[in-house]
């Protein structure tokens, strides 16, 4: 049977919502990985049955990376820790923030972004990972500092056509990229402002607090970024960035997602400011561009338009690969919304959940 699987990571565990391909009605299954915060969700659709991932951290029992080969009906972890720092690093895993499959041509390659700042790589489909030492040992590493959410590597963007190129983003270290499969890394933050620094130092080589980066496979060199102060676009895979904020109520927020079928369409959920992390005018509004960031428009139909105080975190906005595409976001007051018309209107998928930290969706056969 064809179905759509929507993974919802929360502060108290992970939920799976299921729908048929119409995606109009959802059934929510019971919370799993109970009492763990699930920030890092991933779906590896390169397998006949997609493998799901959940990076879960229990305050008592520590972090791990769980996987599911039955579309979220059960979760497992290997006997040995799937993601762990080598003893000689002196570091210990706090959280898996990101799980990103490699290219179609690399069927068992999976990347994981970790806290403290690190990238891990699996060559066996996500059961065991190794530290990408080229990034961990980067000379800038001692100067990376934690953002408000922690010292996290939260974004991994594989180049869609070149398996040796990869871009990552860290809070707060900025954007880094490799062109040799991870051996060497260079910062890629030119044009991104670090507004909290003294006026003559606001464009440093690294140290920016990027919150999320998104791209489209058909435009491999174009990137959109939501930063801590600033929404940016790069047309050269991070060589240069320019602000794209026309029509936005603010330039602060966490998520950015490019539409899966329309490379010029993307979505944000702006917040008032760094000093006021609440929706502007206390309205729940997703913002959309249809021209690669030249302009933005608010999307409100079906969303609460008064007295609204919830926010959307960096990984709590996602799409599926359906036609039409499903657009989903989850909020810190435990609601999940979906849209099947590119964001023109929204429907409530779930409510009264623990605060939503991440969502990921996929259509499966």
């Amino acid at each position, binding site marked *: 049977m064809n179905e759509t699987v929507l993974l919802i990571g929360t502060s108290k565990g992970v939920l799976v919502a299921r729908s048929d391909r119409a995606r109009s009605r959802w059934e929510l299954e019971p919370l799993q990985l109970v009492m763990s915060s699930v920030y890092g969700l991933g779906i590896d659709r390169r397998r006949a049955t997609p493998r799901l991932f959940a990076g879960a951290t229990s305050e*008592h029992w*520590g972090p791990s990376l769980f996987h599911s080969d039955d579309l979220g009906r059960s979760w497992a972890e290997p*006997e040995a820790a799937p993601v762990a720092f080598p003893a000689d690093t002196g570091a210990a895993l706090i959280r898996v923030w990101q799980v990103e499959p490699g290219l179609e041509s690399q069927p068992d390659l999976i990347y994981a972004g970790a806290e403290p700042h690190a990238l891990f790589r699996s060559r066996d489909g996500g059961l065991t990972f190794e530290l990408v030492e080229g990034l961990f040992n980067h000379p800038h590493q001692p100067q990376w500092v934690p953002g408000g959410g922690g010292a996290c590597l939260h974004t991994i963007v594989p180049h869609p056509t070149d398996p040796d190129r990869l871009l990552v983003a860290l809070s707060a270290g900025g954007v880094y990229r490799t062109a040799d499969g991870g051996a060497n890394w260079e910062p890629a933050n030119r044009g991104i402002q670090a507004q909290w620094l003294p006026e003559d130092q606001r464009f440093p080589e690294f140290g920016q607090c990027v919150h999320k980066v998104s791209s489209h496979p058909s435009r491999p060199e174009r990137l959109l970024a939501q930063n801590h102060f600033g929404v940016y676009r790069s047309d050269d895979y991070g060589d240069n960035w320019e602000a794209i904020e026309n029509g936005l109520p603010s330039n602060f927020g966490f998520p950015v997602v490019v539409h899966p079928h329309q490379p010029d369409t993307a979505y944000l959920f702006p917040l008032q400011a760094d000093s006021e992390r609440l929706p502007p005018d206390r309205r729940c509004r997703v913002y959309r561009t249809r021209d690669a960031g030249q302009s933005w428009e608010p999307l409100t139909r079906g969303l609460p338009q008064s007295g609204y105080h919830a926010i959307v975190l960096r990984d709590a906005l996602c799409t599926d690969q359906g036609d039409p595409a499903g657009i989903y976001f989850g909020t810190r007051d435990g609601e999940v919304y979906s849209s099947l018309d590119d964001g023109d209107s929204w429907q409530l998928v779930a409510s009264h959940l623990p605060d939503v930290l991440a969502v990921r969706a996929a259509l499966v056969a």
Partner: protein
Amino acid sequence: MTASLHLPAVLRPSADGQGILPVKAATVGQALDGLAVSWPQLERRLRDEQGVVRRHIQIYLEDTDITDLSGLATPLPEGARIYIIPAISGG
């Protein structure tokens, strides 16, 4: 020394449902080292990969918190009972 490790219910699935595990070790730390071999999933619930006991876990030898003894170097008498106790914390 032969001792026993007593687990809270929430950890028993990581030990095939057992609530009490026999351990042979001279110290509390060595008992956990043994767990890393025989029950690796269970051991990493208790310590991180650098061997540090997770901060919201208390380990008692009989009725005493090992932090009031010699920590992981606390020697184990024959027949000692080690208790894993989740701290009251969180929200």
